[in-house]
């Protein structure tokens, strides 16, 4: 994409003329606002941005962005985004999806997009429920949770999106909450700057069908002790006075309190998001209490479209067919007079 130093956009330039129709109080509003605020900062022209989506509440998102947009069909947006990017690699392509769209009906496309590492930014709005179809459980709904389609509680094990992304050999995974706009903007910007498939999981509150599902983490009284905001190169500390941190005990991550049980500042792990080996990233993604927010993994590698470009150049150099006409007249031919 054409990088330009300064674009005189404000967030308002990214708001379309369409009325936003999510439920009052929905977490999606905060995400939309954050994305619109980040876009002027990523150095991409508005006409070079494409927002694609599947089906679900979150998938209405492209209608509200004053860029190119495509609201497609349930679960298939990763394939659509891939087609857009391969057709025109100079575009900045964003996929907006939800936990049902990405992890249930679109699970196959999701993992294969991640595996290929096409330069896409996937924002996964995880509210652990189906909203648009009015309240059935999703692949991320907690075990035992009662919903319209699980009146006795769910009996299927939920996915942890981070585990799935890293398990599918993902190169970039980040997690944020819809209640922390500053952090959201910072992380979304990191995704924009990373080449390859980026997945940003946003813990998003559905005020109608799954209200307060994340309150263990996001409620004022809880967040200090239940969320660790991590940054590359910094010790993974949290708590009111940063007195707590992640330490490694055997093969397990644990919370250590500095000054207790012989834990010192030196025992606190330093976050390395750029490490190729994903073992530690997987452990961070899996941690439930406290939960890790921020860019967990950001390993840069050659993207699919760069490899494609290299192949094209190689064939251009070696092929005996320089044009389609060459090909048509190749091999054994005969003339009839």
């Amino acid at each position: 994409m054409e990088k330009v130093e300064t674009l005189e956009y404000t967030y308002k330039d990214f708001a379309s003329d369409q009325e936003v129709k999510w439920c009052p109080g929905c977490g999606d509003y905060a995400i939309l606002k954050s994305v619109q605020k980040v876009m002027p900062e990523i150095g991409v022209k508005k006409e070079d941005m494409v927002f694609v989506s599947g089906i679900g509440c979150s998938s209405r998102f492209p209608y509200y962005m004053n860029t190119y947009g495509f609201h497609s069909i349930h679960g298939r947006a990763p394939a659509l985004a891939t087609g857009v990017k391969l057709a025109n690699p100079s575009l900045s392509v964003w996929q907006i999806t939800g936990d049902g769209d990405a992890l249930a009906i679109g699970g196959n496309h999701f993992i294969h997009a991640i595996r290929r590492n096409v330069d896409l930014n996937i924002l996964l709005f995880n509210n652990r429920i189906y909203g648009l179809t009015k309240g059935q459980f999703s692949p991320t709904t907690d075990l035992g949770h009662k919903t319209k389609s699980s009146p006795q509680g769910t009996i299927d094990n939920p996915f942890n999106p981070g585990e799935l992304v890293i398990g599918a050999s993902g190169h970039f995974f980040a997690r944020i909450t819809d209640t922390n706009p500053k952090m959201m903007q910072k992380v979304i910007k990191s995704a924009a700057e990373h080449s390859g498939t980026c997945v940003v999981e946003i813990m998003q509150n559905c005020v109608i069908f799954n209200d307060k599902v994340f309150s263990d983490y996001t409620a004022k009284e809880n967040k200090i002790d239940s969320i660790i905001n991590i940054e590359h190169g910094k010790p993974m500390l949290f708590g009111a006075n940063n007195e707590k941190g992640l330490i490694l005990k055997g093969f397990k991550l644990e919370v250590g309190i500095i000054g207790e049980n012989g834990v010192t500042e030196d025992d606190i792990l330093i976050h390395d998001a750029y490490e190729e080996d994903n073992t530690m990233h997987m452990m961070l993604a899996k941690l439930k209490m406290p939960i890790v927010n921020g860019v967990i993994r950001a390993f840069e590698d050659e993207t699919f479209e760069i490899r494609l470009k290299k192949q094209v150049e190689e064939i251009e150099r070696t092929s005996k067919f320089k044009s389609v006409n060459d090909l048509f007249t190749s091999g054994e031919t005969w003339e009839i007079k």
Partner: protein
Amino acid sequence: MGTTAVQELEKVVIKFAGDSGDGMQLTGTQFTGTSALLGNDIATFPDYPAEIRAPQGTVAGVSGFQVHIGQTQIYTPGDQPDVLVAMNAAALKANIGEVARGKTIILDIDNFKRKDWEKAGFEEDPLESGLLSDYHVIEAPITSLTRTALQDLGLDNKSITRSKNMFALGMVYWMFSRPLDYTERFLKDKFATKELIYKGNVKALKAGFNYADTIEALSSASTILPADMEPGLYKNIMGNEATAWGFLAAAEKSGKELFLGSYPITPASEILHEISKYKHFGAKAFQAEDEIAGIVSSIGASFAGDLAITTTSGPGLALKGEALGLAVMTELPLVVVDVQRGGPSTGLPTKTEQSDLMQALYGRNGESPVIVVAAKSPADCFDMAFIASKLTLEHVTPVILLTDGYVANGSQPWKIKKIEDLDTITPHDADKNMMNWQPYERDTNSLARYMVYPGMEGYEHRIGGLEKDGITGNISYDPKNHEEMVKIREEKVQRVANYIPELEIHGAQEGDLLVVGWGGTFGSLTTAINQCEVNERSVGQAHFSYIKPLPKNTAEVFGKFKKIVVCELNNGQLVNYLRAELPQFKYLQYNKIQGLPFRVSELTEEFVKILEA
């Protein structure tokens, strides 16, 4: 060549049959290539099991390749072989029913031991039972002669035995006065790094040729003189290859890059293979994770400005249905190729059928019209792929191109086309000077909307699968707007009739019987009609390349004949579509659903029956 006088034949049908590991497809294509270079007209038909290596020596594992060559125009691979080459007892068992009495059968006698014919399912020795008494049988020890010929080369036993197909080919080359140089060149290229195997194959080929000369395999060697074909430069082409090339040509001609999103499926995969080779022509072949991702990635590429296509067979088309509806709804150019095979479900993956027509026309939720066209022969796949691309880009609506296993795998001489000689393709793009462009503003003639692509400043817009306002494209649930939009999308497809050729009548221009067909049955039907003409019947033929919309003069053509019979390799699909579209006519139907093409003889028999009824 021996001293025997060479007899001239008008045409001949040869079938090579053996175990699926015996190299019969290669043998057949070599005979085809050699004959093509001699200027014969040709049609071929490979017939192989769905299993890669079915049990050796059994009828299920028999692989065959039939080739029809002639000095007159050849439209089909032929009903019945004049020469059958059977490399083992199972190949004889599988094919003997196809060979008319008095014809020639070459047997590799080394594979007719008791265990061989028992495994093939014969109850008694076919060589002794009298089964072959009415045939001209050549009992040739092909395997052992190949071994003897190659024993001093230092090749391993397996490689020696694998060369026996070249021995058999050499024999047939002698019988029909074919030169060996085409195959020698081919072998040199194929085994460029395996000198010994190359030598072994050539030696087997020559040994077979000389052996046939020595035993005077036929009472005299025959030849088929060059066919009387339109002047020009030709090459032999397979249907799937021609389809791929048609798209390459269309991309070049439209000034667009080609994007193929596809998932492997028999019998369509060769199109994916072929396009994958030419990334440097701006042709991106993307092997997706499934059929759905294949079409959806293409829809994304179309939105971003490529000529977008997806290739599949019947089961894949079923999976693509929802996404094709999205392309209809958003009104994006897209070509879907369905290389039809026997269904439903997995059905008969390697056998041909025309049973996806209803699926192509109606197999989606909602009112979801698309243009439907069909290819009638291997070489016609090039033209129809090109035309499908032209229609989709100029009318901004999806097109389904139907081919089938028979035309996809068959081959035929193709008069080589040059890019500069092809029709123009003008994508229906918005003019940069268009004032106040709106996403769903239309051309008043074609009703096509004007395309803009991401990257164009000032044209940012959103599209999607929800019903949209007829001008702005914004979501609209307005009842009247929906009804209007449904009708506009249908009308847009119907208006394509103003841009396609009229239906032609071949044979009698009016009279007793009109034979109607579509797609891959063209060759069989044409040959059958030609024979009826000889019988001085007033029989005409109308063959549909354009099915939706129908050519404008269809009713006029139908009205010229007393009877109409619609012939299809399905249970009656075009016929029911015609009954719905043009109910004023009475339609007879003739259907075959055996995974096999029509035989000319069964068609002429049927036509005579109808004429005499």
